[in-house]
């Protein structure tokens, strides 16, 4: 995401003179050179126009209609959006998504920062432990959800079994409105923290050793070195991780679909879940598209805040 924007413009001036002059010698018209470029882009471009640009524009247009499964529709302007404002389900799902994000983001950032710091401090078998922490990341969220659904199970789940050893529980982690979102957040954090951990670890390794050594000579303890040397240096990387995880959290769906089906009583019914149900349960495509646009706006705002706070260079 950041890399694409950061890439230097290719070729530059040297390309304009050198090859162009030689091409003229070889009688290659500029037209033919352009054609080659266009032909190389063509397959991806065609795919993009049909399967990305058309749906993006289609999403907006659909949200202005009452398009249904039959394919019949009428133009209803912004009715879907005013319906959203009054829809209790939409408000609930927005609140669920926000609550989930507020739980998930600090959890996953602390977990990935904590493990990255541990790896940084402990030199011994670093590669092995890094691999262990990264392992859940290569699996699917569906797999994570299936395993953790059983772990949380009130009757024969692993967690209640362990808690039973110290005479606690049993708790119905996924069956109580008070614990369901935290339980799902733990599952998602377990599955995904390896990614942010790697990014943060790379950031930590980029902190100049001399700074840390200087601080150490000045008598700074481990916490002071972290607080006053590492953390300020890590800020841009930390911010990138924060934004990536926040955007991911707003799109939560898979884990809820598998673990709770949105329950109990919609306590884990997220925005994307509402979008999915509106589209593929009630076939209310226009309305579902409007929800999709709200999601897009949220993601856009989060990204813009990142741009504003971190600036162009990061």
């Amino acid at each position, binding site marked *: *995401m950041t*890399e*694409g924007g950061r*890439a*230097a413009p*290719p070729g530059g001036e040297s*390309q304009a003179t050198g*090859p162009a002059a*030689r091409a003229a010698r*070889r009688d290659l018209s500029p037209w033919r*050179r352009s054609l*080659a*470029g*266009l032909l*190389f*882009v063509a*397959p991806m*471009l065609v*795919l*993009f126009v*049909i399967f*990305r640009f058309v749906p*993006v524009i289609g999403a907006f247009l*659909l949200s202005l209609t009452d*398009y249904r499964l039959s394919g019949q529709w009428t133009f209803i302007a912004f009715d879907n959006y005013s319906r959203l404002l009054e829809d209790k389900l939409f408000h609930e799902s927005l609140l669920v998504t926000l609550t989930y994000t507020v739980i998930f983001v600090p959890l996953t950032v602390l977990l990935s920062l*904590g493990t990255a710091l541990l790896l940084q*401090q*402990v030199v011994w078998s670093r590669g092995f*432990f890094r*691999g*262990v*922490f990264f392992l*859940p*990341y*290569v*699996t*699917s*969220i*569906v*797999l994570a*959800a*299936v*395993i953790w659904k059983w772990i949380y199970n009130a009757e*024969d789940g*692993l967690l209640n079994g362990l808690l039973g050893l110290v005479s606690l529980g049993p708790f119905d982690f996924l069956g109580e409105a008070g614990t369901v979102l935290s339980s799902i957040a733990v599952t998602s954090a377990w599955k995904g923290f390896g990614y942010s951990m790697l990014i943060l670890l*790379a950031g930590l390794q980029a902190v100049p050793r001399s700074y840390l050594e200087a601080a150490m000579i000045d008598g700074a303890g*481990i916490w002071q070195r972290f607080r006053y040397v590492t953390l300020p240096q890590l800020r841009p990387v930390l911010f990138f991780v924060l934004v990536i995880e926040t955007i991911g959290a707003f*799109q939560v*769906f*898979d884990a809820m*679909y*598998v673990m709770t089906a949105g329950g109990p009583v919609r306590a884990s019914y997220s925005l994307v879940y509402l979008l*999915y149900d509106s*589209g593929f349960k009630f076939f209310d*495509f226009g309305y*579902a598209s409007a929800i*999709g*646009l709200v999601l*897009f706006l949220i*993601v856009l705002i989060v990204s813009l805040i990142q741009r504003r706070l971190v600036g162009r260079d990061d």
Partner: protein
Amino acid sequence: MRPARLTLPTLLVLTAVVTILPFAAMVLVAFAPPSGQTFPDALNPSRWTWQNFSNVLSSSDIPRWTVNSLIYSLVSVLFILLFAAMAGYAFAKKRFPGRELMFWAFLATLMVPFQATLIPSYILVSKLGWVDGYWGLVVPTLANSQAVFLMRQFISQLPDELFEAAEIDGASEWRTFSTIVLPLVRPALATLGIFVFLWHWNDFLWPLVIGQSAQMQTLTVGLASLQSEAVPINQVMAGATITVIPSLLVFGLLQRYLTDSIAMTGLKA
């Protein structure tokens, strides 16, 4: 400094054990005897059995789902690598009208979450008559902007003199691409290939929407349906263990590669 010497390694090992625990539990339950108590039977190696695996393989469509997942992942890898390398080459080394505009348009689509265009994409695919088929599953996911950016980035680092030399030697455009560009960006192709494989192998929402019959489900969708039905937990875990094998293979063989490239490029699976 003194307490850190002991507590930090302990904490590290503890965190690692907790991270591995769910996988270990999955495998143990998958091997536990189907009739008995999940625990402590799962912890008794003498009672381990393959029964859950054979049961789940015979009662569900796992072989078919595996084939679907493989088609979805491998065909996508092949075409995304090829088309992204071609587009990346053009954006990096060619001049043609509309290049900047196209590139920014590609960039802009990164901002739009996939779920936001789920409905129009589905309607489009259904208009094409591709719902519940491989075309609908694979083709729309080939439009991958991250892949184009990565390839453009790598190819723009190749020296221009290389292409001038090829041109002087009279190499055709395609020959330049296939014999100079592709071999030189092999590391980038490998990195991208791993990511595209994992993206597709682990994907859920799109296969869920497109694969409507049991025959067209992928492993992730099948696994989700397995655990929502009244399938015993031992069998669900046996199924889960089967689905995780390819990811583990990729991980085991290419872990270094994968972790290094995330740190370098920020690619997210």
